[in-house]
């Protein structure tokens, strides 16, 4: 397929175009499948990595007048020194372009399929834009930062570091004021020396999602309506509803990945602990703590699976809360 690049992405035969498209699609599908497996990307539940790759790459795969114009333009505009791209490294450049397009378009997948999460992503992005923040695109995620040039040779904060930072400076109260939330968070992060001054977009959204859920329960349980029987009932109802839809998804996930009965049992216990924390207004234990408590091990590949399932549960809770809010607003 190097000849296609040499030819300015003009395909002389329709067969070559078909082969090129299948190669690009495979690159995109494998990439998404991998990111899902390491929990860097969450796909709307019914969507397969292949379907997602088709949706995200469709715009660059348009083949018109014998040419893949988007590929031609990208390579022409970004790599003026043609001698850098050789037959040996060409596929890496192709991959780089495909990964870039996927990273840029990824949040669009949620617009119709998961509006609650899409809303969080859009909110962060629009706020960051209005505050003059920068976004850097990396292999597995986009990174958000306030200073223009970040030293990416230093590690980024893990989700747990972010949560700790948020809790240390009591940022939870700004959760519905995204500009203040971001500014205060970076005021603190930019003074730290053990992390680079940027956060992963996906982690940022996950942290905000978690705070929103905790905040909802805290307000309903500890706020004005502490002893209000109806509110407590409503929260229980939300949790039960979320657990119901989550357990269906969990079973599918377990069957699909041939996970053991032990995994299933431990996950059910973990969810029970999270719910208990919600209901008592306690801060939720970290995924790692929960994993060690119930599985008795601290293992990276298991951690990704547990984190995915916890994230799936919180996703369901968030959806139910959003729905509940809409219903309350309509009354």
């Amino acid at each position, binding site marked *: 397929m190097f000849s296609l690049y040499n030819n300015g992405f003009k395909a002389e035969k329709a067969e070559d175009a078909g082969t090129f498209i*299948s190669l690009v699609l495979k690159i995109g599908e494998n990439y998404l499948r991998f990111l899902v497996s390491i929990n860097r990307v969450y796909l709307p539940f019914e969507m397969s990595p292949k379907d997602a790759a088709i949706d995200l790459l469709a715009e660059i795969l348009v083949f018109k007048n014998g040419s893949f114009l988007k590929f031609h333009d990208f390579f022409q505009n970004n790599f003026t020194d043609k001698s850098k791209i050789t037959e040996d490294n060409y596929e890496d450049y192709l991959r780089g372009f495909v990964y870039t397009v996927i990273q840029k378009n990824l949040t669009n997948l949620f617009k119709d399929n998961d509006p609650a999460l899409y809303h969080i992503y859009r909110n962060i992005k629009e706020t960051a834009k209005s505050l003059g923040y920068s976004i850097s695109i990396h292999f597995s995620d986009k990174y958000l930062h306030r200073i223009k040039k970040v030293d990416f040779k230093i590690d980024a904060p893990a989700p747990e570091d972010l949560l700790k930072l948020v809790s240390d400076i009591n940022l939870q109260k700004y959760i519905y004021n995204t500009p203040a939330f971001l500014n205060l968070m970076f005021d603190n992060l930019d003074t730290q020396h053990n992390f*680079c001054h940027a956060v992963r977009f996906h982690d940022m959204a996950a942290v905000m999602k978690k705070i929103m859920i905790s905040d909802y329960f805290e307000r309903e349980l500890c706020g004005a309506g502490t002893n209000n029987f109806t509110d407590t009932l409503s929260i229980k109802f939300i949790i039960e509803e979320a657990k119901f839809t989550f357990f269906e998804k969990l079973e599918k996930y377990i069957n699909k990945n041939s996970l053991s009965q032990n995994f299933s049992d431990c996950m059910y216990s973990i969810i029970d602990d999270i719910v208990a924390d919600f209901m008592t207004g306690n801060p939720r234990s970290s995924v790692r703590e929960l994993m060690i408590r119930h599985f008795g091990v601290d293992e990276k590949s298991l951690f990704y699976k547990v984190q995915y399932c916890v994230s799936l549960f919180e996703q369901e809770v968030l959806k139910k809360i959003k729905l509940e809010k809409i219903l309350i607003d309509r009354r």
Partner: protein
Amino acid sequence: MIEDNYIFEELENQDSGVLGDEHSLFERLKSYEKDSENTDSGPHIIDFLKSEYPEREKLPALKLAAESSGSDSGNFKSEFLFSLDGKYALKFTKKLDEEIHIRLISESELNTDEVALYSSELNKYFVSNISGDFIIGQYSKFNPEELNFKALLPKTKLTLLNKEGSITVISDIGAHIENRQTDRFIYLNLENSADFLLAVILSGNSKHIIKIDKDIIEIPSLLITEKSYIFLY
């Protein structure tokens, strides 16, 4: 908003910090790709046979069948046919106008929208309507109690993008448009792919069986929308 792209740097160079972590993830992806090259994509046919009814305790789909019976309306009671592993059920409901409506029920990851049905007794393929029902007409002409079915799952799926009359085929089998298109049809070449029994186009909300002859699919131009899908079984 400034968007710096570090992907190309990370694919090439091993570094420390974020750059190093991202590079090792890329290396992991390459091994992941190698490991998943020969992964079996699972069966493409599910048998529903009258003669081989699974044992009752091996019927996970029985619960679903029971739940769906509760929603039956009208004078006709639904009947069920279970797959050999008991995970899937076909629900049969007779309707007034000589029609049997069949619905595939499952609690697995199966996307039932993409499934086609085949009956060897009728020697006919069926695709579902917008509600997910497969419809068999004129049931008084045969004995519906004796029908066996195979549910076919697509071996692959193609996407057709139509931008101002220029059609792009997105597939993982190298399929492409043949030059010999007419006003009424376009022809897709599947490039010596595996043998396919059936091709179905999803155009808007409706599905249609289209002609497939060895490696060539004939698609009526009228069925091509801005984005259409072809399921190959």
